[in-house]
């Protein structure tokens, strides 16, 4: 099944091309755009971007696989990413991860059977002064407690 950017996505791609002296520089932003539009970076998306950029799918694949933010497989509607690095660990991140693991019934890396949540442990999110921290899709949630995590996750539609 082939994929293609929406009209606005396509316009954004064209705009990106004007921002760099080299066409290949749009690969990272194009992969972000693909993930936003298609939900994850599928093999079809890789072929599509390769065509737009004018390089091989293997080239795009090699780049995409280097970076942790590009999901090469579908993830849940909400990607819950809890920081496990030092400042968050000092303030209870391990306990929060255990709590969410129990609450959602999935281990880090897993997705709930209804496809609503994917749970991941991630490295420092650059928000250590408001630890513990998690990112759900694009959004940061800071100064977390068990209660606030419950509230945040329970409120997601």
């Amino acid at each position, binding site marked *: 099944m082939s994929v293609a950017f929406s009209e606005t996505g396509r316009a954004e791609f064209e705009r990106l091309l004007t921002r760099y002296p*080299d066409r290949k520089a749009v690969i*990272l932003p194009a992969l972000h755009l693909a993930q936003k539009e298609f939900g994850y970076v599928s093999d079809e998306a890789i072929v599509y971007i390769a065509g737009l950029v004018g390089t091989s799918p293997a080239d795009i694949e090699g780049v995409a696989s280097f970076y942790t933010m590009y999901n090469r497989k579908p993830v849940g509607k909400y990607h819950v990413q809890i920081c496990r690095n030092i*400042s968050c660990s000092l303030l209870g991140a391990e306990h929060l991860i255990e709590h969410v693991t129990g609450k959602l019934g999935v281990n880090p890396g897993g997705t709930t059977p209804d496809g609503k949540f994917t749970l991941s442990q991630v*490295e420092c999110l*650059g928000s250590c002064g408001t630890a513990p921290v998690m990112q759900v899709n*694009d959004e940061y949630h800071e100064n977390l407690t068990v209660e606030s995590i419950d509230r945040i996750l329970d409120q997601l539609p």
Partner: protein
Amino acid sequence: METVLTTHFANERYRRLETYRQYGGYEALKKAFAMDPGQIIDEVKKANLRGRGGAGFPAGVKWGFLPKDLSRPRALVVNADEGEPGTFKDRLIMTRGPHLLIEGIVISSFALRAYACWIYIRGEFVREARIMDEAIAEAYAAGLLGKNILGSGFDLDVTVHRGAGAYICGEETSLINSLEGKRGWPRLKPPFPASVGAFGLPTIVNNVETIADIPWIVTHGGETFAALGVEKNGGTRLIGVSGAVNRPGVYELSAGVNLKEIIYHHAGGIKDGKALKAVIPGGSSTPVLRPDEINVAYDIESMGKIGTMAGSGGVIVIPEGTCMVRALSVLMNFYAHESCGQCTPCREGTGWLKRIVGRIEAGKGRKGDVELILDLCDNMMGRTICPLSEAAVMPAQSFIWKFREEFDRHIGEQKCPYGNRF
């Protein structure tokens, strides 16, 4: 104390161009346009401005490395990757004072004669990237970016480029590869970015905070900036304090402020009335300190004298009752995960460090494991393309040197005395 960056950060509207200008924003740019580019670089040299990204290289000296001939276009790249665990200061600048960064970029680009600037921002910072994009759009609309800025004849384009989750991309040559749409593998130096950088162009890479200091330096002069700090480390620093303190956060303080004062005065002391056990003073890669070592000035030279670094300004405070083996294990997992794998000593070494520290923490440490770690560390130093390998070694060695008895106890008792918890 006089502040350079955070003076108006409490005002939410400061991120808007109109408010920024009400506070005198973009006046430094007008002043800079009336100066000769060489004069601006001289002021930056006089300012003793040391790079705020971690290595502390003098900014003015770096700027002087660009080749003299002007036939090739030049680029400025701003490092907004903010990946070093314990560091969260550039985010504050970008969300509270995006125009401070943009004004710094225009002045720096004019001084360096760069035709374009890319801000490489970590991919997770979606909100921060959006705020920067909005501020950049305001600046274009007001003629502060684009063609013939403020009638000066100087043109500049600025673009936000989002990373995608890789700590190594904070290293400047990895960052350049990533900007070019490649895997973020660090490059062998030389050539240095100043001669062959982004898209093959002579390129200067500087941290967000370094560039955001430039407008103030132009307004008040390099010497005035220098006087805010200490002899070889001018100005203020944004110091991020995290971990077990009563008031975690970013504090703008003189570059020579006392470390103990940062923790006990500014950050309000140790949480829950506990005692202090250890401090990682400048981001996760910097050698750990014991409580009896923190009565020290935080400037680059003073920290160097006691065998550690002010690094990226991230002070991580570890309270009594913390298992140092577990803390090191968290860090070793991180470096093993983030090694790009190009160099054998780093790829294999970070993997071994993770496994050995992990097994000690799990109560399965073997006699000789501590010596094995120290041996591995020796073999990981100075043999790699980039400093990530050393960034893993510094915590490993210093944790063992300063908290050796905890490692021995884990191995001796074949269990974690702290019950495998933080």
